[in-house]
């Protein structure tokens, strides 16, 4: 029934099967929307946030999707600024993932501020001394960039592209895309950095506080570096997932391996910097504040030293080493293991910087504050996932996301 909308030369499942799938995911989406409405209508008492936990589960999700969505700006940077032309075969999907991640991040922020109708206050009554103001500016503008990068894809739908104006608009937007991509890289550098910088300047939280360069704590650079390093792994993991679900190869191995190799070297260099940062913090910064390393990893039911090992060794060193070796990249099992571990690694890093920071006692009479999210928080955190699945499904079905799909999956009949 919808075959006129599906790109030429590719095969898709029946409309009935597709509708059933979208319906099932929409049920999850509606559950999240219901929880979101509860938070808006009844207030933040729907959450388990308290005086210790000013950041809920969704703020971890917010920072995690921003880091994972970093694949869009970094792949765009590599494609348009550095000139890695092979990446043109995966940049559409990277943009789509980035668009989903950043729109999700903005949605989460809309829930977090409680009264979304006042969201514009952050622009009109800007606190120019706040890193979070910079984050809000850059995040909003970068979402604009991702929308601009996503529009030509939509206009390349088989039917829309028949309209001459849309066809020309898509063409002209492609022509100047490097300008938008460069702007996106500029914006991403600052918003990723400032998200990390916020943690680094928390003088009252020795777990997060860092020394720095001029006005920037180390965490500013570590966040930007980690998003650029790990973001492409998220793009690759979702590419592999879509290939598994669709039962088709969508991107050639050389493209995947190139992105994996670059990501691997970025992870290795990042993790060296992260280890140096952690060592300096543990040996100098924390002791100056009257703490030892193990103060942050003991006497509580959850945050043991295992979380540091999970972040740095399992989610950093291991995937980095796999991805920089040719054998590792060419072995499907190792490649998939590495990109999944990398996604876990950066998500753990954001968890630590958002939630463990809040849990650590900072006064002698303080306690370790544990936190279990309410179902509303869980539902609103799953909401963007359901939204993302729906947008990927619709985009894959109706838009030419993967330029190599026809070549890799020739229709024989």
């Amino acid at each position, binding site marked *: 029934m919808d075959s006129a909308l599906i790109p030429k030369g590719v095969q898709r499942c029946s409309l009935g099967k597709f509708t059933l799938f979208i319906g099932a995911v929409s049920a999850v989406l509606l559950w999240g929307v219901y929880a979101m409405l509860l938070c808006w209508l009844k207030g933040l008492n729907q959450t388990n946030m308290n005086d210790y936990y000013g950041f809920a589960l969704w703020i971890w999700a917010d920072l995690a999707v921003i880091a994972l969505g970093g694949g869009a700006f970094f792949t765009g940077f590599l494609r348009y600024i550095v000139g890695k032309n092979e990446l043109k075969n995966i940049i559409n999907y990277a943009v789509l993932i980035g668009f989903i991640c950043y729109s999700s991040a903005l949605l989460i922020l809309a829930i977090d501020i409680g009264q979304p109708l006042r969201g514009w206050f952050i622009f009109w009554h800007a606190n*120019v001394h706040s890193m979070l103001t910079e984050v809000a*500016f850059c995040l909003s503008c970068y979402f604009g960039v991702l929308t601009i990068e996503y529009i030509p894809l939509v206009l390349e739908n088989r039917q829309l592209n028949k309209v001459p104006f849309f066809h*020309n608009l898509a063409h002209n937007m492609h022509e100047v895309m490097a300008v938008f991509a460069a*702007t996106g890289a500029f914006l991403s550098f600052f918003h990723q950095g400032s998200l990390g910088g916020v943690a680094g300047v928390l003088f009252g939280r020795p777990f997060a506080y860092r020394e720095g360069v001029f006005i920037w704590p180390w965490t500013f650079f570590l966040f930007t570096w980690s998003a650029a390093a790990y973001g492409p792994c998220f793009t690759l993991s979702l590419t592999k997932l879509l290939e598994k679900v669709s039962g088709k190869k969508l991107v050639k191995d050389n493209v995947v391996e190139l992105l994996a190799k670059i990501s691997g070297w970025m992870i290795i260099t990042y993790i060296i910097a992260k280890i140096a940062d952690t060592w300096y913090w543990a040996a100098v910064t924390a002791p100056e504040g009257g703490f030892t390393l193990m103060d942050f990893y003991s006497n509580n039911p959850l945050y043991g030293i295992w979380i540091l090992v999970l972040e740095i060794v399992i989610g950093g060193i291991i995937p980095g080493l796999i991805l920089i070796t040719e054998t590792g990249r060419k072995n499907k099992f190792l490649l998939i293991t590495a990109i999944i571990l990398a996604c876990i690694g950066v998500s753990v890093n954001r968890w630590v910087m958002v939630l463990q920071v809040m849990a650590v006692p900072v006064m002698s009479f303080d306690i370790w504050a544990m936190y279990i999210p309410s179902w509303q928080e869980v539902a609103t955190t799953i909401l963007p996932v359901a939204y993302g699945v729906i947008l990927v499904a619709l985009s894959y079905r109706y838009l030419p996301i993967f*330029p190599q799909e026809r070549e890799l999956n020739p229709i024989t009949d």
Partner: protein
Amino acid sequence: MFPGFFEWIWDGGHMVFMGGLWYALSILGLGMTYCIVKSCIDTCQGGHDDNHGHH
């Protein structure tokens, strides 16, 4: 927030922050304006390039 608005102060923070915001918005706005205007001209002239590249 614009210069002249009662909360505006001519200091480094305002110039850097708001300048950065307007710089980014200007590039996006000018870029999109260029694309839309050029597309209108191309469409009126009957230009229809079938071989444009993807991203």
